[in-house]
Structures are given as C-alpha cells and as structure tokens.
C-alpha cells in the first residue's frame, strides 16, 4: 500500500495516506486530480471495481467528504479516495463514464445529501424518497426525530429504554 502510495505520489500531488489495514488505505486527493487518478488506478493499477461512493457531512467545517472506494480484485486490496468539497451549493463532477455504477451512487447522494452531479444520468430522479420536499435527510442539520414526530402518527403507550440498562434490569433485578 505504501509502495503504491509512493508510486502514485510521483505522478499526482496526494494528500496524506491513512493505512487502515494492510490491504485497505485511504488517500485524500484534490478535487481536480481525482479523475486522472481514478483513470490511472482503473487502467494501470488494476483497481477495476468501484465498490462504493459515499459522503460524510462535516457540517462544522462546511464540507462534504466524498469517498470513492476502489477495489483491486487481483491483488486483493482496496483503496479509498477522499475528496473534500464545499458544502454550500455542493456539486461534483460525475464519474459515471468511468464506472457506470457511479450513476446510481451519485443519484443517491444527490437525494440524501443534496450533492449535485451535473450530467450524471437520472441524477435528479427520486431514488427512495418519492415526493420528498424537505431538506435532504442525511444532512446533519435535518432533525430526523422532529420530522418523524411531525409527519407520522405514533401509537400511544410506546416506551423507550436503553437496551443495556433495560436488560440489566431484566436479568439482574436486584442490581447485582
């Protein structure tokens, strides 16, 4: 993994490398190098598979972190590329032409985080939220509980317990 990083670093200006496992690492890259890097990884380094594309909402920093997780099946290693983009008017270049599967992930990100991917096919079509009018639900400013309370009727008499506490009480009623 480190050799790969060293190799890549010769060609692209890369951020730091986080090695999670021997076969799984994450690299932070600049947005403008992403595409070239992806193509390089896909065509020359054997990362043929886009495992997933997901986002993390760093609300406090005002950024979204996009993670492109790639897999090299021959060498059994995975590499995640992190790209930071601005949270306001979030938008990112589409990579569906590199991996067609990306279109689906991008559609999901668009719906859940409100990140736009111009030119990605069907990116604005509803994915699982048909007729959603509120702000995208995975943004952290979205208050799920409040929304659920307002939208859905709850059955009276429901109790909520902390499972650990509750089981403790059930199994050891004497507090031992």
């Amino acid at each position, binding site marked *: 993994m480190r050799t790969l990083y060293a190799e890549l670093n010769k060609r692209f200006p890369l951020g730091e490398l986080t090695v999670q496992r021997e076969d799984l690492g994450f690299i932070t890259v600049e947005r403008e190098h992403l595409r070239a890097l992806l193509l390089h990884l896909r065509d020359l380094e054997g990362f043929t598979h886009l495992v997933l594309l997901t986002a993390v909402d760093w609300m406090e920093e005002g950024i979204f972190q996009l993670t492109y997780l790639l897999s090299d099946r021959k060498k059994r290693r995975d590499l995640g590329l992190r790209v930071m983009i601005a949270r306001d008017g979030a938008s990112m270049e589409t990579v569906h032409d590199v991996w067609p599967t990306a279109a689906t992930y991008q559609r999901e990100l668009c719906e859940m985080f409100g990140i736009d991917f111009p030119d990605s096919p069907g990116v604005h079509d509803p994915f699982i*939220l*048909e007729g*959603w009018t509120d702000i995208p639900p995975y943004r952290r400013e979205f208050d*799920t509980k409040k929304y*659920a309370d307002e*939208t859905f009727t709850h*059955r009276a008499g429901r109790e*909520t317990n902390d499972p650990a506490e509750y089981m403790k009480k059930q199994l050891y009623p004497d507090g031992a």
Partner: protein
Amino acid sequence: MKDELKKRIITGPDGFEFEVDPLNDYYCDAPPKVHPPAYVKIVEDLFNWARSESIWILGFGTGCGAIEMRPLMTPRFDAYRYGVQWRPTPRQSNLFIISGYLSVKTLKRVIRSYEQMQSPKYVIGLGSCTINGGMYWDSYNTIKKLDEYLPVDLYIAGCMPRPEALLKGFEDLKKIIRAGEGEGANIYAKNFDWYKANQKKVIQDWDMPDYNW
C-alpha cells in the same frame, strides 16, 4: 409527477387534436363500495367458513418479515394444510400480510395492491414495525402505525415473529372471519376519506387516482 401522467395534446390519425388526461382517461376513478354480507345468514356463514378455510395470500414481501413467510411453504410448516396458499396477483388474493416496516415509497405500492384485491380482504400486520414503528420508531421514512392507512384485522407482534406465530395468526384470523368480523374492506370503504387523508399526509406526491381499481 411523471411526464407520462401529465395532460398532453394528441393528434389523431385524422389530424384531429384532442387532450388526453392520463389520470382520468386511463384510470377508473370510482370510489370503493360497501359490499353488504349476503342477505341470508346461513349463506354468509357458509361463505365465511369457506373464506376462512381458503386463505390466499398475496405474495408481497414488504420488509424483513418476508423472510419469515417463506418457510411456511416448506415441509416443516406446510401452511397448505390449513388451506393457506400464495397467489402471485392481488386480484386473486384475500390476505395481505404486511411483513415488517413500511417505507413511504412501499406504502404507496401496498395501498395500490390492497385496493386491487377483491373484497372481502384481510390485512395482517406482521412484526412490531407495523404496530408502532418498532426499531424504526424515529425514522423519517417509515410509517409507525399501519392501521392509520389500512384496516388491519390482526397484528402479530415480535421482531420478528417466528413462522409458528404466523400459523397461530392464521388460526386467529380464521376465527375472526368465521365470526363475520373480517370486514376490513367495508371499513375501508366506509372510512375512505379518513384513510385517504392519512395516506396523503405521508405520501406527498400523490399521483394516482384515489382508489386503484
């Protein structure tokens, strides 16, 4: 709303132009009717007995409970013994098992399928999610109380209940039917506006007729 559902101007083969309103022209918009039981009691009793002994389930797995329904067909549980069998189309089914949580998107399909079943028809809510949301009680995208949206005859609690519980549920449902209390379809028709209001509250892009025949 999808483009296909919007009104459009069509030119006929003879050059005549006219408007097509898909929601009106392609879908029947009659409201459901209340179907009274047979006039003669003994006939109704016979029918109810037959209904209870011939429960055809709509094969529609909405949540994780669908996994629990499959074993009923296997030799171990063999629900066929009780006159229970699965049908591939709502038209021919009598029992709709809501097997677990219902997302809003699925609810729309469930309503549609339910309305396409013929009366009398029954609904079983399987698992806690259908009762009060269960572990999804605070989810932004699942309904919490099934009977707000559909007339439920029977709930089977658990997360998830085992197939045996389902079999027991069938037996209880049979009793309900035989007692002439499985009138969910009529309740739905009677309280149609209320159900619709509830449904439309969560389904915000309501783009179908009120009743899906």
